[in-house]
């Protein structure tokens, strides 16, 4: 366990100063030629990496016979007919699936925003007995495999007749069961200067008022991260809807897509790819809009992505 010699010799004073301002990545000796080579390599890596997506996009707009006859990602022509055909091919159709997904996502996002923010404020700012213990418990639940609670939760929701409704997918979010977001918000709130809420308290604001009028507005960036991640994970969730929903008309996109695969699987690949592509669009658009936020969220909390 030997510390690197260079580090041991480094002046602690300087090291501390360096910690305060993140260093710029090395810029030395980047000749134009090297930079061009680097860009070339990066472009190559990117193309390889998103090749599957490009192949899917191309396969959704070409005739069936072309899909499996070449690995190219450049379509010979563009025929969009798979999209409207696939959209309505399987009743109740993707419009309904999208709407269902949207309803579940809105519920889940609201739940996480409200419940996780409340809990995070308590952990970040208030002093109360056993706080350390509860915080540890909260972190512990982050690590706990969901499968341990899966069956009793199912039994519980089935006993109160919630199976077949969206409630099992939404209500837990209003009870802050996604500890990841509590953690994310706690970390963010700790970075907000305490003077601000102290000032509010001196001015006579109560806890609730301080939370609502001072903390909440300052926490907006972290709330956005929470909302975006909750949306994406809820939208992509497969196991939850698989267990709790059985009526086709209630299916969200992942279940709808799977049903589509089972029904059309070997008969209409073009439509299959078209609908797979469509099902990725909400996440993709969210990604385009909030790309910076998502990447920051990953980088600062180590959220699974």
């Amino acid at each position, binding site marked *: *366990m030997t*510390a690197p010699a*260079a580090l*041991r010799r480094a002046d602690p004073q*300087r*090291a501390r*100063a360096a*910690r305060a301002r993140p*260093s710029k*990545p090395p*810029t030395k000796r980047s000749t134009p030629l090297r930079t061009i080579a680097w*860009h070339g390599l*990066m472009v190559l890596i990117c193309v390889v*990496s998103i090749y*599957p997506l490009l*192949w899917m996009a191309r396969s959704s707009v070409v005739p069936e016979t072309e899909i*499996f006859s070449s690995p190219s990602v450049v379509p010979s022509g563009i025929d969009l007919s798979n999209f409207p055909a696939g959209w309505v091919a399987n009743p109740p159709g993707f419009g309904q699936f999208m709407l269902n997904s949207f309803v579940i996502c809105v519920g889940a996002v609201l739940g996480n925003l*409200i419940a996780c923010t*409340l809990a995070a404020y*308590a952990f970040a700012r208030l*002093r*109360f007995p056993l706080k*350390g213990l*509860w915080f*540890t418990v909260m972190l512990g*639940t*982050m*690590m*706990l*495999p969901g499968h*341990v*609670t*899966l*069956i*009793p939760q199912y*039994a*519980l929701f089935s006993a109160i007749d919630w199976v077949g409704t969206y409630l099992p997918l939404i209500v837990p979010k209003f*009870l802050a069961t996604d500890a990841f977001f509590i*953690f994310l918000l706690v*970390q963010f709130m*700790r970075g907000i200067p305490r003077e601000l809420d102290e000032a509010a308290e001196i001015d006579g604001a109560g*806890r609730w008022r301080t939370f609502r009028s001072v903390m909440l507005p300052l926490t907006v960036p972290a709330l956005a991260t929470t909302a975006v991640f909750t949306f*994406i994970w809820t939208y992509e969730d497969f*196991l939850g809807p*698989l267990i709790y929903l059985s009526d086709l008309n209630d299916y969200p996109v*992942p279940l709808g897509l799977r049903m589509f*695969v*089972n029904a059309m699987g070997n008969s209409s*690949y073009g439509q299959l790819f078209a609908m*797979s592509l469509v*099902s990725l669009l909400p996440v*993709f658009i969210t*990604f385009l809009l909030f790309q910076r936020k998502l*990447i920051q969220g*990953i*980088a*600062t909390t*180590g*959220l699974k*992505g």
Partner: protein
Amino acid sequence: MRSSQTLKAETTAAARSAAPVRPSGGALSGGAARGRAPKPRRSPRQRGEARAGYLFLLPWFVGLVGLVLGPMIVSAYLSFTEYDLFHDPVWVGLDNYRTMFTDDPRYLQSLRVTFTYVLASVPLRLAVALGLALLMNRAVRGMSFYRAVLYLPSLLGGSVAIAVLWRQLFGGEGAVNQILALVGIDGPSWISSPDTSLLTIIVLAVWQFGSPMVIFLAGLRQIPQEVLEAATVDGAGAVRRFFSVVLPLLTPLVFFNVIMQTIVAFQAFTPSYIISNGTGGPVDSTLFYTLYLYIKGFSEFEMGYASAMAWVLVAIIAVFTAVNFLGARRWVFYGDQS
């Protein structure tokens, strides 16, 4: 979980942009210590604050008791019973656990599949992530564009659509074989052959290297320029700098990623479900642990058995995490050690 205390420190390290060189102690433990400080007498103000604290935590408490701790106790009990949801549970003692390890070849197969998956996909994914992060750690225009593109698969990869795509990509006439044909290789039908089907799911997992890559990249950014300069002054070349300075400073992050990715990998479900059409086939070659748990619990309604499986999974993950922590003393470097 027994490791959460230590993990707490870990997660904090990652939380603060995972600064590899960090001051001892942390915001988190500081906060916890404040909460625990002995206060023999509470002023009305403090009592008010305590009440407010618990009020703000109320929804979380209800969830914790009703949806986490309560169900955990119930599932521990159910694991010793035969239970099908419609009849009362029947106590069978350790039978479920005994059956698992002595009388259920499919269960043992699901263990084999899952271990293979975890032990192959986690190191590979992290290696790719680290390699690319090192390559990308430059102040060049366009860096954030590349980072975004490479992060995309990790955002989409867990979805049903991608699993559907994977089936076709690695099918008998899929794009992978089309490409192999260009260089004269006649590829098998990757998905429908029991020898290669698991491999396709591992490839799918490795493909989602984006999020650890982003974490590594953030960590690399935090390495103080001065430290690297000091190493250069001391005569260290690029290779030496990497192995003696950069890599040791990154080890807390590598460690953090190993822990998190392992926990997530053990619970992988969607890809195996979609790619094998819910069966774990061909010949159980993609029968992931969680898929088998789902089949047992929700198709065969052996919910006692499935609960027992869930607890064994917790035990496995706890052991893996503990082993990681023990091993970590040998290779994880923290800046505050001298």
